[in-house]
């Protein structure tokens, strides 16, 4: 059925009749492209997770995450899982050609994703102020010299793997939120993204890592502007489905990071 529909679309677009070769995978090309990208990206995360597991097994690994960190990470996990459900609803709405609900479900997905980023940002800020820093990076003024500070000097792999893995994932979530924003709101999203970047830069204190990290939004704004102005289009159900693949992948990766990074380092 999918092949027949593809042939029909080809005729509609090119205005010619005739036989078209059925696609090898029975799917449109950008969907296959996204799957290939996700397969390659999974190897990036796979390498990072293997490096973490290696360090976890062969090093006297600290277990510093208290109840508040675990509760926070569990809520973050619930946010991502719920965002995947709203993303599925967005795909269904797009296939019904229900533009209003497609946008609403996409915005709900973005809200869950943003909640994840904010909670994670708060967690990072708390840990950094408790002394967890990368080797060579300055400690913020007033940072504690407690357990996390000792871990940073005694087991530098802990901070390196924690910040490396979670930063890589947080970047993916941020890109995902921007991607969904572009699909949901198109050019209307650009001023919102610009305002978020400016507000973040002005309101986050300069000794906070996210004072500089928020520039990822500026880069996203530039890239999204180039795409939207060079190739303006009305994103259809297939675009929503492909963006959903990316979003679910971000969710999937967290299903490994959460147990390995947090639960394997739980303070009992």
């Amino acid at each position, binding site marked *: 059925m999918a092949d027949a529909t593809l042939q029909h679309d080809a005729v509609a677009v090119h205005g010619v009749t005739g036989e078209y070769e059925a696609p090898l*995978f029975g799917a449109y090309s950008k969907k296959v492209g996204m799957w290939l990208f996700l*397969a390659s990206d999974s190897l990036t995360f796979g390498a990072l997770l293997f490096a973490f597991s290696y360090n976890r097994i062969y090093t006297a690994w600290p277990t510093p995450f208290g109840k508040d960190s675990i509760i926070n990470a569990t809520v973050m996990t619930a946010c991502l899982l719920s965002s995947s459900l709203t993303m599925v609803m967005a795909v269904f709405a797009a296939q019904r050609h229900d533009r209003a609900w497609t946008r609403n479900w996409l915005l709900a997905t973005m809200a869950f994703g943003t909640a994840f980023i904010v909670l994670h940002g708060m967690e990072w800020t708390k840990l950094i102020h408790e002394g967890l820093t990368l080797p060579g990076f300055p400690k913020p003024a007033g940072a504690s010299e407690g357990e996390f500070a000792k871990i940073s000097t005694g087991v530098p792999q802990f901070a390196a793997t924690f910040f490396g893995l979670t930063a890589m994932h947080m970047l993916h979530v941020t890109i995902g939120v921007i991607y969904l924003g572009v699909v949901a709101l198109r050019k209307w999203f650009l001023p919102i993204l610009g305002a978020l970047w400016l507000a973040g830069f002005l309101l986050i204190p300069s000794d906070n890592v996210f004072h500089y990290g928020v520039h990822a939004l500026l880069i996203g704004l530039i890239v999204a502007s180039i795409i939207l102005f060079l190739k303006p289009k009305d994103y259809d159900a297939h675009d929503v489905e492909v963006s959903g693949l990316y979003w679910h992948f971000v969710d999937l990766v967290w299903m490994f990071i959460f147990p390995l990074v947090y639960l394997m380092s739980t303070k009992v």
Partner: protein
Amino acid sequence: MHDVATHDDSKGQYFWVWGALLVLTGIEVWLGYRQIFEPVRMLEALLVLSVIKSALIIAYFMHLKFEKPLMRWLLVVSVTSCFVIMYFFFFPDAGRIVHLGVR
């Protein structure tokens, strides 16, 4: 074009999958606090649960279950093969460096 709405997609099954994922997350947190296994066994137990969760996400949320068998198998086999190579070749080799005394 290929349209996922043409599959047997009742919305209820996605809520079930979402619920199952939340329950599995709860089990992971419980295991994390109970510490009933030594670290290596714990790592294996959590990884098994993570693989089950990721399989649910890939099969249902990402709709791979409903794709053509060729695409489904090609993706699963190729990615799994890469991880197997990482596990059986790179992982022991990293341990070998420690035993050789490289600091």
